[in-house]
């Protein structure tokens, strides 16, 4: 009897182990994991590309898993995914943003979600072997025309001589300035080439609220020496962080005197008809994508716009990869996975020629499902500019031109109303391509520490009045510095 019981227990134990094994992908399935977007942003493009891929590769099914946005569901899913990766399985490929703020469809229009990313730091994910080396495949891909891709940005996907990641979008902090107004404000165009901390100090000294808002969208791009992954150390100290935070706090409080009710993030989508005429920031630090909005405004006004990349504290122009693709470490067929990912480096994808135009929703498996509530979201298909930078302005200008026609109008008295109004036509100027040709000195991947820095900035000033709060800036800086140290050391 005892032997029989013992035998049954052993059988049950092995049965349990077998049942606990994770679901495996079949050999004719390509498993892609991506984040949620609106229907006509990256989810839509992936669906379009997947359809084309399946036509070109008969017998292969592309399975697209979109990471849940619900916190609890996401936590469970990511835990399961990481367990699979740990035991050598996992997705064949990833297509992920580096930001943890997602724009997804809502009942009317779209809304923003903050999520915990699957890979908090892409560089550490590369170093920890989360992706397969696709260097040989990329180097031998003569049809891809890699010469037209932004070399410095593409090199960010290479670690220790191995290519793990294909950057698909990138961005740099860009200074937009009204040249005539600069002189009136006591600044010269050459002042804009200073390091960020010196520029901030000069703007602060001028004390003009109209230019103090320049750094309203300050990010970690303001720090050139940030994290040294090789030495596992932080390149800046708490005092530097503290100084930048103090300058920002002062500039924000100065900005309060100017158009306090204006929404800076949406500024470039509007600029007009505020009672007394045009109202705008004469000095503004934005992104590459702002170029296609800023430039036509200035062209329409017949004013000269100066556009320069902003140098961080330490003097370097820092580019940030905002979207990337990678082949998973558990992928059995990296050639197949690469052949899927490379489609997003072609002109059709980079320059949004295959962007969905008819309203439809993207279902759970990443496929189109019919619906009538798809509102086309504004902006480019993803944050950042395409890495296929050479020749990119013309096709993307054609995409953005629509927005220039259909401007929304906000009123500066605090009451926000939108109306669509045709403003006028604009012509693309090839001189605007210069900023896209700018070569960054450093390229990094956005990571979770960027969001933490943004969270700190929100604590410095009152959200309504922009008055400085009494938060202990030194303690905040010290805390952030420690978080950077832990981030580098533990990952």
């Amino acid at each position, binding site marked *: 009897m005892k032997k029989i019981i013992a035998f049954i227990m052993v059988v049950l134990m092995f049965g349990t182990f077998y049942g606990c094994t994770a679901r495996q992908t079949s050999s004719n399935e390509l498993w892609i994991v991506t984040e949620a977007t609106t229907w006509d942003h990256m989810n839509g493009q992936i669906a379009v590309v997947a359809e084309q891929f399946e036509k070109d590769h008969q017998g292969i099914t592309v399975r697209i898993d979109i990471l849940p946005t619900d916190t609890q569901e996401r936590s469970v899913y990511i835990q399961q995914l990481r367990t699979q990766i740990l035991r050598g399985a996992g997705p064949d490929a990833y297509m992920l943003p580096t930001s943890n703020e997602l724009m997804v469809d809502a009942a009317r229009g779209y809304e923003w979600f903050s999520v915990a990313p699957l890979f908090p730091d892409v560089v550490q994910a590369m170093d*920890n*072997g989360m992706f397969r080396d696709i260097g040989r495949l990329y180097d031998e891909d003569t049809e891809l025309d890699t010469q037209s891709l932004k070399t410095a940005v593409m090199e960010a996907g290479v670690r220790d001589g191995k290519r793990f990641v294909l950057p698909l979008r990138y961005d740099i902090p860009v200074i937009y300035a009204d040249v005539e107004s600069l002189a009136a404000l006591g600044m010269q165009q050459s002042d804009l080439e200073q390091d960020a901390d010196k520029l901030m100090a000069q703007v602060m000294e001028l004390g003009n609220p109209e230019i103090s808002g320049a750094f309203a969208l300050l990010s970690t791009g303001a720090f050139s020496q940030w994290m040294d992954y090789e030495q596992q150390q932080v390149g800046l100290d708490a005092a530097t962080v503290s100084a930048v935070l103090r300058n920002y706090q002062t500039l924000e409080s100065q900005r309060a005197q100017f158009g306090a009710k204006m929404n800076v993030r949406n500024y470039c989508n509007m600029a007009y008809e505020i009672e007394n005429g045009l109202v705008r920031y004469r000095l503004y630090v934005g992104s590459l994508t702002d170029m296609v909005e800023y430039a036509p405004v200035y062209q329409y006004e017949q004013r000269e716009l100066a556009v320069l990349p902003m140098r961080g504290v330490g003097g370097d122009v820092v580019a940030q990869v905002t979207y990337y693709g990678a082949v998973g470490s558990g992928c059995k067929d990296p050639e197949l996975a690469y052949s899927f990912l490379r489609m997003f480096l072609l002109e059709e994808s980079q320059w949004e020629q295959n962007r969905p135009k008819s309203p439809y929703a993207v279902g759970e498996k990443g496929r189109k499902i019919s619906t009538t509530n798809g509102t086309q979201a504004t902006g480019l298909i993803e944050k950042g500019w395409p890495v296929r930078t050479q020749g990119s302005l013309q096709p993307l200008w054609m995409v953005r031109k629509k927005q220039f026609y259909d401007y929304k109008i906000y009123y500066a008295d605090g009451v926000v109303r939108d109306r669509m109004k045709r403003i006028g036509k604009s012509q693309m100027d090839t001189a605007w391509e210069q900023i896209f040709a700018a070569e960054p000195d450093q390229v990094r991947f956005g990571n979770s520490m960027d969001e933490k820095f943004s969270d700190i900035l929100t604590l410095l000033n009152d959200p309504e009045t922009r008055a400085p709060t009494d938060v202990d800036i030194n303690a905040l800086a010290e805390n952030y510095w420690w978080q950077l140290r832990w981030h580098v050391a533990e*990952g």
Partner: protein
Amino acid sequence: MKLSKRQALTGWTLVLPLLIGCVVFYLVPFGIVALFSGVKGSGYSRVFTGLENYTQLLGNEIFRMAMGNTAAFLFLGIAMNLLIAYAVALLLKKQMAGSRLLQSVVMLPYVMPVVGTVLLADIVFTETGLANALLQWLGMPVADWLNSENAFLTMLFLYLWKNTGYSVVLILSGLGTIPAEQYDAAELDGASPGQKFFHITAPQMWYSIFFAGVFSLINAFKCFREIFLISGSHPHHSIYMLQHFINNSFEKMSYSKMATASMILVVLLCILFGICYRLVLRKEAYKE
């Protein structure tokens, strides 16, 4: 007694499920962790790195800080735990011998759930807690007990509060095994209390102290739960322990770092355990 083949087979069959369980849930995972410490990556990206992970980790300043904090916490905590427990046990030897109520009272902090300890810390050590209220009443400036250098002493206090009682009970058990006749004989020979302690009590208590020390060590590592619940995954750097480093490395999918740190910890503990055990064996050799 020699077993017959049939008896042996029955025995092995009955033990087999447990043996398989131990192998599968202890030995195999240990082997996998040891393997992870010598490689980098997962799946088809896995590469053998040899001792590179170890040299990199030993050069990691945050890891060294965590090791230092853990070592300081262990040495101070265990030493103070044993000293206090020993002293309390000696004092209570006579009273507690027949009193189960006293034994229960001493054990109360140990059996309190972790959440209870966290709640206690919240009541006593937060900015508006009892500790600061007492300081204010005494006219002294308030202190930050959880997010400053004081956090180390706070956690040490919580560890001692929670675990000293258990050590007292273990040491008392050891004291109870020493024959009373030896003390009577010493008394007759005019020995002082100090002489009785050093010549009768101490030499016979090494195993009990070692046993209490091992449990103190185990409980010291368990203290991570309280620190984690009170201060999160990244507490003040003075109480950032090795377990935080290992836990956070796992969360960040740095499995080789996590495994390497674990193996270093195992090796150091084995060395420490070995040294202490040899010392105890030497001290107790007179019994043979």
